[in-house]
């Protein structure tokens, strides 16, 4: 067994999940072989079964799931034959897990250091003092600021990227042989993601830990993994070393995974301005200023992309435009006339002409309303359509968003993520608006679904002449859809201009940082970036 240094062998693993009164096959016979010190990238869309497979590598099945077939062998131990007590001893000592949402995985009432070393001490791997010293060492390895004292803080006192690194430290503290990373950087900004990826890679290499890295982002996995396995519907689509996979993906499905990156909207001449934001200041409460002297012009019939990391004020800008957060100073001109600051002072027609689409389609639709109710309400509210006329218009809208009448009486939880977002688009279109604000509308979706939504939005713009304000942190999306780009940082506009202009050097310092942090498909990208940034500092 140990001659070829294999750590984990999964053979023909099959997992069933229970939902809607039936058992469904989630994983349909997948093989995994992982050697010591190697990193395997598991990639696929949501529902592909990658998290389920990742957990199965620990011998664990989520509630509502069961492992029905195959074998899972970890370092010569048959994981499926172990009792839950024996498995528990293995977890947190020899196998560790890093979850997507670090904020949800930490107990807000305990200090970071205590949580980092808890399982190590509980498993009796090290005594309290040694574990504490070791944790500080790990914090240093992970390039956390002030490693001696950061452990004394509570989870809410550090940033998302730092918390994710602390979680990695927690997983590493017992020096496991295997770590499962489940989408650890998906919730982070690109600029933070780079730091976290670098830290994770460094530490995994330093201690020669084997890892399974689960993500839906091919460019990210290209930086981390030695081998990549593409999953779809619980089956392996393609399996290859990273360089081979990136340079010559074989399966058509793998090729389609980076379809969005290939989309690019041709530049168009600027027209008259539909919306003008003039020297707007806004803040929550009295003290925190979120928008500082913002001036933005939105050309009619085009797409303005607002980019920046979280906290840059881009969503706040949307709230000011819609009137949810009245600005303190400055004015907003819509079609040349000033919009009242507060929502309640705006006329029905003003409300109708600016519509909004949200990031999370799940929470943007009332779970107790059917598609008919959701799309029908704005038709009734703004246009006074009822009965058959309303139904007819709903059908037209459904056709417009490429869905059919079978969706009329479905509830939101009976739709896929992409379908939900399409219904939200239809709801916005129902009001027949001139301007739609899209707040990160594709960032919660899979690549292939993203592409579909972006194409749909582009087509609707062409056919109906709608103007979009597209808030996003994803540069690939900006390339795909934008005409004009606004870069925001800490409540200020860094740059505004045509897409070509913004994406051509020389850049202002922040734009440079943002653009250079977007992962590229090249496996050497992260290494090169590290070198460049190290040189720049020196």
């Amino acid at each position: 067994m140990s001659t070829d240094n294999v750590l984990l062998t999964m053979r023909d693993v099959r997992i069933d999940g229970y939902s809607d009164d039936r058992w469904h096959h989630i994983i349909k016979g997948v093989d995994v072989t992982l050697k010591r010190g190697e990193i395997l990238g598991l990639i696929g869309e949501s529902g592909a079964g990658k998290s389920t497979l990742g957990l199965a590598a620990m011998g664990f099945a989520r509630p509502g799931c069961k492992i029905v077939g195959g074998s899972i062998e970890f370092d010569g131990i048959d994981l499926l034959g172990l009792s839950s007590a024996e498995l528990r001893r293995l977890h947190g000592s020899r196998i560790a897990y890093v979850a997507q949402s670090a904020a949800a995985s930490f107990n807000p009432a305990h200090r970071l250091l205590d949580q980092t070393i808890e399982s190590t001490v509980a498993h009796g791997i090290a005594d309290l003092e040694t574990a504490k010293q070791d944790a500080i060492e790990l914090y240093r390895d992970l390039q956390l600021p002030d490693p001696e004292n950061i452990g004394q803080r509570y989870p809410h006192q550090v940033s998302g990227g730092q918390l994710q690194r602390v979680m990695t430290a927690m997983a590493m503290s017992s020096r496991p042989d295997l770590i499962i990373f489940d989408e650890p950087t998906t919730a982070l900004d690109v600029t933070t993601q780079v730091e976290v990826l670098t830290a994770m890679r460094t530490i995994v290499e330093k201690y020669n830990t084997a890892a399974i890295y689960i993500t839906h982002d091919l460019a990210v996995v290209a930086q981390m993994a030695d081998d990549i396995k593409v999953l779809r519907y619980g089956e392996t689509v393609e399996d290859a070393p990273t360089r081979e996979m990136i340079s010559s993906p074989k399966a058509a499905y793998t090729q389609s995974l980076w379809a969005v990156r290939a989309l690019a909207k041709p530049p168009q001449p600027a027209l008259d301005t539909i919306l003008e934001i003039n020297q707007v200041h806004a803040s929550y409460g009295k003290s925190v200023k979120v928008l500082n002297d913002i001036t933005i012009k939105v050309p009619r019939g085009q797409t303005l992309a607002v980019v920046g990391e979280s906290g840059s004020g881009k969503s706040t800008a949307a709230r000011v435009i819609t009137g949810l957060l009245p600005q303190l100073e400055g004015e907003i001109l819509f079609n040349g006339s000033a919009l009242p600051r507060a929502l309640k002072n705006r006329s029905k027609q003003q409300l109708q002409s600016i519509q909004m689409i949200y990031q999370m389609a799940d929470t943007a639709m009332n779970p107790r309303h059917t598609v008919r109710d959701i799309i029908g309400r704005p038709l009734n509210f703004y246009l006074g359509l009822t009965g058959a006329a309303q139904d007819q218009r709903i059908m037209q809208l459904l056709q417009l968003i490429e869905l059919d009448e079978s969706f009329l009486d479905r509830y939101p939880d009976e739709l896929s993520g992409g379908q939900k977002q399409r219904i939200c688009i239809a709801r916005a279109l129902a009001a027949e608006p001139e301007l739609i604000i899209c707040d990160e509308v594709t960032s919660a979706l899979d690549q292939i679904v993203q592409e579909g939504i972006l194409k749909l939005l582009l087509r609707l713009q062409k056919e109906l002449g709608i103007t979009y304000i597209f808030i996003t942190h994803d540069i690939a999306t900006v390339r795909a859809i934008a005409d004009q780009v606004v870069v925001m940082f800490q409540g200020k506009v860094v740059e505004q201009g045509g897409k070509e202009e913004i994406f051509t050097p020389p850049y202002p310092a922040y734009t440079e940082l943002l653009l250079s942090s977007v992962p590229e498909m090249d496996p050497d990208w992260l290494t090169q970036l590290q070198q460049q940034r190290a040189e720049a500092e020196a």
Partner: protein
Amino acid sequence: MNTPNTPDGSYSASNEVTQVKARRSVLQNIWRTLKTAPPTAWFGMIVITLYLTVALFAPLLAPHGQAQVFTMAYAPWSDEFLLGTDALGRDVFSRLIYGARNTIGIAVATTLLAFLIGGSLGLMAAISRNWLDQVLSRFVDVLMAIPSLIFALMLLSIFGSSAINLIFIIAVLDATRVFRLTRAVALNVVVMDYVEAAKLRGEGLVWIMRREILPNIMPPLVAEFGLRFCFVFLTIAALSFLGVGIQPPTADWGSMVRENAGLIQFAEYDLTAALTPMIPAAAIALLTVAVNFVVDWFLHQTSGLRDEH
């Protein structure tokens, strides 16, 4: 499982795989749920049904009128007076049956009113989240700081203890609890994007309350309705026992316990006589327990905290 690709290989949004729940009628759904009910819930439901039947058909079931006075006071249990007669010579069994109607009727009316007041104010407070929320919440805090039984006694002696006053006073006092619960659960829904979307559309307060929020907070409210009913029921019984609740000659279980309480001391001579005041008390207890069983089961059903293994 099928793929979101059409036969020619292109992508199609409507072909994406999702699970659509089977469409069942309301009756089918109720039956499916009932089949899984535990014995305690069945017991509760049967008891509640019995009580409701008795309450609805009281005039048909009772052998005598509730205020009908017979010549024989304190008659022992017999074929004519199943549970004997009270101090004024009224048939205890008939009064017990009418008592179901009066006590439960007033308790249900009070609970409904409490929910109407507390629920709508709670929703309004949760949506507005401004000075209105502050004013209402602090006012409720003040009301809740005063022991409610003493407060009710005081108010009833000020306004007089008619059935209408009783309903209003207890409803207002209990509305404070309903307000707190409604506000708390509604706050979780108010922050959802779909409520913001409705506000952006320009919807009015009532529409947002009724269409966007209420459907999403029904389960805890329904459960609270059951519990609140129990408390109201007990409060009314307690007030009646103290003599300020439902007034004679209207039959009611609380006052029946008080009127016949003296009979307990005769236990050593006639056991049945001592049981007479116990029976309305037991009727109160049994209904409370039954409602609690059903509420427990309902909460378990809707909380989602079920073990999936």
